[in-house]
């Protein structure tokens, strides 16, 4: 029983961070209707920023959130403005050329980082990296607990932004119906840039929070891009509540799979869930909640 509870606890904790990754992706999906296959790579860039700040300036990873998130926000806005938005005006045979563009962006980001930092594995070893809290016999990894807390705060902040502010309402309006939003005076071009920037910033937050408990190398982005779209589809494309649930479900499913099936099949569990959801519940988890 203890093993089961322990598995659930670590699944939910990592799920909180996954939710953050998925939220960014689902925002982009909802507003622009494209899959951002550079999402994990944006996260990787943020991880390197955090790493550099810790290694050379000795700044605590949690404080470097204040640097990595704005930096990635800016990067996201630039990518959207100069690479993705111009594609809307071009006729092409393949309708998915925005997705292919994100693939190109992903490759460039990975390779630039490889150029600067080489392919070595890096990690940030803070004094509290391996600190553990015990509640009866269940262990809570301390950095993961903090990460989970900050992830929840950021999620709450995002919801406040989307539900209560004017700009947030414009974002939701653009997601619902771009043409109608345009007619009502929403600057849709700026909203798409803002959304991509926000998505990138959320990915950056996830990367920075993950760094004290994870390791870092230029190809780390790929697996996280896969996870991000699994979460997004699991939750229902474009649904923010769905992304949070999707993140938690994926976290729990992976850690259950790792404990009870095999460590090697951990990633396959996510993929199988993904295909099953696509086939039997194409709307994702959001169809269950109607949110």
């Amino acid at each position, binding site marked *: 029983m203890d093993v089961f509870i322990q598995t659930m606890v670590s699944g939910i904790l990592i799920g909180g961070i996954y939710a953050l990754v998925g939220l960014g992706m689902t925002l982009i*999906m909802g507003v622009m*209707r*494209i*899959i951002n296959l550079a999402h994990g790579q944006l996260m990787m860039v943020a991880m390197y920023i955090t790493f550099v700040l810790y290694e050379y300036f000795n700044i605590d990873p949690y404080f470097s959130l204040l640097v990595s998130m704005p930096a990635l926000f800016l990067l996201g806005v630039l990518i959207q403005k100069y*690479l993705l938005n*111009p*594609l809307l005006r*071009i*006729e*092409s*045979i*393949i*309708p*998915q*050329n925005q*997705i*292919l*563009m994100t*693939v*190109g*962006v*992903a*490759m*460039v980001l*990975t*390779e*630039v980082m*490889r*150029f600067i930092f080489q392919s070595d594995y890096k990690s940030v070893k803070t004094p509290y990296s391996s600190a553990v809290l015990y509640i009866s016999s269940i262990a809570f990894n301390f950095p993961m607990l903090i990460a989970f807390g900050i992830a929840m705060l950021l999620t709450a902040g995002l919801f406040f932004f989307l539900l209560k502010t004017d700009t947030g309402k414009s974002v939701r309006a653009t997601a619902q119906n771009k043409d109608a939003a345009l007619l009502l005076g929403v600057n849709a071009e700026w909203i798409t840039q803002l959304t991509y920037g926000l998505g990138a910033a959320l990915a950056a937050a996830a990367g920075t929070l993950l760094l004290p408990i994870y390791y870092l190398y230029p190809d780390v982005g*790929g697996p996280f891009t*896969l996870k991000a*779209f*699994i979460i997004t*589809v699991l939750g229902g*494309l474009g649904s923010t509540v769905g992304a949070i649930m999707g993140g938690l479900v994926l976290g729990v499913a992976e850690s259950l799979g790792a404990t009870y099936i*095999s460590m*090697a*099949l951990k*990633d*396959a569990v996510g*993929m*199988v869930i*993904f*295909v099953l959801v*696509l*086939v039997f519940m*194409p709307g994702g988890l959001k169809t269950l909640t109607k949110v």
Partner: protein
Amino acid sequence: MKPNHWSKLIIVLFLAIFPLIVPSDYYRHIFILALMWVVIGSSWNLLAGYTGQVSFGHAAFFGVGAYTAGLCVTKLHISAWWGMLLAGPVCMVVAFFIGCVCFRLRGPYFNLATLAIAEIFRLTAIVWRDLTEGMQGILIMRTFRNKTYYYYFALILAAACIYAIYRVIRSKWGYYFVAIREDQDAAESMGISSFRYKTFSLLISSFFTGLAGAFYMNYMGFIDPEVVFSLYFISIMAILVAIIGGAGTIWGPAVGAFIMVLLQETFRSSFFGLFPKWVSQAHVLVFGLLVIFVIRYMTNGIVGDWIKVQRLWSKNKEQPLASTGS
């Protein structure tokens, strides 16, 4: 003959006698790989460029083809060349089931589903050690030491693939495919069963990709799951080859394959040793930049936007007549 046909004839002749006039095994190797990519790129192009179903999971067929040939040796104890016969049908069976799952989905959902299925194949091949030897991979003895035989084999395969796709595109099926690409609902309402013709397209596409996989096994003599089921080095590369050459054109993927493979080798060898060593790290970076450039400025690829390319070359001269080669 139009001058356009002459240039094509010269290219074909050049390819036919290439291994006889170039003695270096290294250059033959590059050309063999390029011809293999012609096959993969063209078959991806049939499904994506003509039928509009952008697959991110062609590594699944390539890998299944390669493993079919490999397992002929390790499990059936027959020559890996039998794999060339078996790989096509095996891939078609696999593709049929994949199609049943994926063709229920559209647009981005379809892209993601194919990507996920290829990943499932990769992970299965890693974990199922009894069948595939897992990460150890499969090592076989190559039949010929001389690369010339492999070269002609690849050339015949590439020619057969392009010719088959050319015939399909010119037939009734080809028009159905394009109709589905342009507007699936309209095609459906005209009485074209979109599921059936998408499946046909996928079957042909997977057949040739599987053959390319079996050829790869025979030629390289070694495979492991991370190589043949690789997302970036097979699935994405197939897309890049077709996009850069020109999706939805017959010759686009062939042009793209040669450009990509030559570019890759040029950078990997630091411009054949002329440039300092760090240049060799940049080959994937160059791919990425090329993709961004092509999608941004030549959306239909080099062959698809050939007129644009020509205009760049001959700014001051008289406008040349359109010769897109498709």
